[in-house]
């Protein structure tokens, strides 16, 4: 099947040209002005984040809009949202590598970079939510003078192990994949500073046959581990909800629903970044319209799978026959927060249907707008899942309402700075598209063309 596919990269480019084009980006950075504007804007957001965190740590989580019964809100909501976005980077990179889908070689580097910082943004939220974040180390089993250990049977404890494992494995996978490209950039560098920078970071990579053999073994093994890791991490995240008895959360569909929704939102953000990067660095020869076409299809497919989760959730509630479960469904579609439910439907699934048409998948503008809509839709979905399950507690006397206030928003908007600043620095300093892997695909395609 993979053999008979049409080429994804134009064949009339040489291996040397591709190397020079990609290694040039950090060495002779093309869009200094636009990059600086983007960086300054992101710095502003990061400053907002820093200020908000200082205020939060000084005054406590009481500055947020959370209350009883809605004691979980933006912190968990955005944690799930950011982590979900991160998962698509791993899936694109690892799953498609194992399946021999070579089109991923143009996308994997920035998708993995996106994963890294999305996980950072996600991981910071539970820490902020702790109330007393300086006691973070209580999550780890250390021989405390109090003689107690962490509660290993709690999903809240599973969480820190899952997220830290995911962050570490993503970082290792990203760096192992990057080493040969750092070597290539080192060999292209003319200035001493860049030579030292890439020379040290490439660890002296020389492309020896035996090194490549071990590198491939390690890289593919990491990929094979990363795929089940993604599934386990987001399943574990869903258990933060599903393991409790709250109506609207306590459902067996949750792990699958969360993993698919995560992939959905993540592929949307990968598409946005792909479109931005290819126009910013004039990489239309490597991130082609065919790539956008495939991304559009994947987005549509994961979107429809997420839609199945919506259907099943309602079925599940009625099938259970439980009055409170059914009431939660009514609260979702017609309650005080119905706008989040219908907003999620609109932004996730209605605009998405345009992707059935080829022109929409191949139009950067259309795909970018649809992807943005999906990112918003999935954000609303997480909001809906959280708030609609909590605001009407079991006892009517405990009912409440939630609205995010200034500090909720300022931290959330600030995390965009936390994501963008390191992301922009990485695309400034490192090859933004995998050099060796792109050449591998290009060579295979050229050989195939030559041999008919």
């Amino acid at each position, binding site marked *: 099947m993979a053999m008979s596919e049409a080429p994804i990269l134009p064949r009339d480019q040489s291996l040397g040209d591709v190397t020079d084009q990609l290694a040039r980006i950090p060495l002779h950075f093309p869009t200094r002005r636009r990059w600086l504007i983007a960086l300054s804007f992101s710095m502003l957001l990061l400053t907002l984040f820093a200020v908000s965190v200082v205020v939060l740590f000084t005054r406590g989580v009481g500055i947020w809009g959370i209350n009883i019964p809605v004691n979980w809100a933006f912190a968990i909501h955005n944690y799930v949202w950011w982590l979900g976005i991160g998962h698509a980077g791993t899936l694109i990179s690892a799953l498609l590598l194992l399946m021999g889908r070579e089109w991923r070689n143009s996308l994997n580097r920035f998708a993995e970079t996106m994963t890294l910082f999305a996980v950072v943004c996600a991981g910071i939220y539970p820490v902020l939510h702790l109330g007393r974040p300086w006691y973070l180390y209580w999550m780890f089993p250390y021989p405390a003078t109090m003689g107690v250990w962490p509660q290993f049977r709690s999903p809240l404890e599973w969480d820190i192990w899952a997220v830290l494992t995911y962050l570490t494995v993503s970082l290792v996978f990203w760096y192992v994949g990057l080493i040969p490209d750092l070597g290539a950039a080192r060999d292209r560098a003319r200035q001493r500073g860049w030579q030292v920078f890439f020379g040290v970071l490439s660890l002296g990579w020389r492309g020896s046959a035996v090194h*490549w053999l071990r590198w491939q073994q390690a890289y593919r093994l990491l990929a094979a581990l990363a795929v089940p890791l993604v599934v386990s991490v987001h399943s574990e995240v869903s258990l933060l909800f599903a393991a409790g008895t709250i109506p609207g959360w306590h459902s067996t569909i949750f792990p699958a629903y969360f993993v698919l929704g995560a992939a959905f939102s993540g592929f949307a953000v990968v598409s946005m970044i792909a479109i931005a990067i290819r126009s910013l660095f004039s990489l239309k020869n490597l991130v082609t319209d065919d790539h956008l076409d495939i991304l559009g299809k994947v987005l549509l497919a994961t979107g429809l799978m997420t839609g199945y989760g919506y259907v099943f959730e309602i079925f599940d509630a009625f099938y259970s026959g439980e009055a409170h479960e059914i009431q939660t469904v009514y609260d979702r579609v017609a309650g005080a927060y119905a706008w989040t439910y219908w907003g999620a439907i609109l932004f996730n699934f209605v605009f998405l249907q345009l992707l059935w048409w080829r022109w929409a998948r191949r139009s950067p503008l259309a795909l970018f707008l649809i992807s943005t809509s999906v990112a918003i839709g999935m954000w609303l979905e997480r909001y809906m899942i959280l708030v609609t399950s909590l605001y009407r507690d079991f006892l009517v006397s405990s009912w409440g309402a939630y609205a995010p206030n200034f500090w909720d928003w300022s931290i959330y908007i600030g995390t965009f700075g936390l994501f963008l600043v390191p992301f922009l620095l990485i695309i400034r300093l490192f090859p933004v598209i995998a050099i060796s892997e792109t050449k591998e695909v290009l060579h295979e395609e050229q050989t195939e063309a030559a041999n008919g």
Partner: protein
Amino acid sequence: MADPRPYGLLAEFETPEALLEAAQRAREDGYRDLDAFTPFPVHDLAEILEIRDTRVLWLGFAGGCFGFALALAMQIGSNWDYPLDVGGRPVYALSAFAVIAFELTVLFAALFPAIGMLALNGLPRLNYPVFAASRFHLASRDRFFLCIKAGDARFDAEETTQFLSRIGARSVELVPA
């Protein structure tokens, strides 16, 4: 002033196919101490050079076992040391321990081979004799190099150079040690 014991001879080829053919002929001619330098992993090259090494994969397996054992030991051990009885639920709840056991299995199954790959490759090692070759910077661009090391029993600076030119090398360079 030539070094009495050079590192070896570096021959340049323009395509992976040419490199594979040259490596094959070098093997057939009796050369054994060979290496190749390529911009991306070349299929079949390791087989022709008869490089077999599965230690990285075994390290992955060992890492997985280690992580799994560590996770179970940590969770069972801490509950043995201070049993947390919550409503009479099992203290050694293996189904609840499964998540962290899985995560740590993956963590160490990833860390062992990644670090092991670097260690087995002798990296980081920032300098290496082949970097001195004048055209070696192309090994990360679009050229494919075959190296016959001086340690090879059949190595002879003159003869081996001629041999490499004969089998189609675009350039041949003696690499000092």
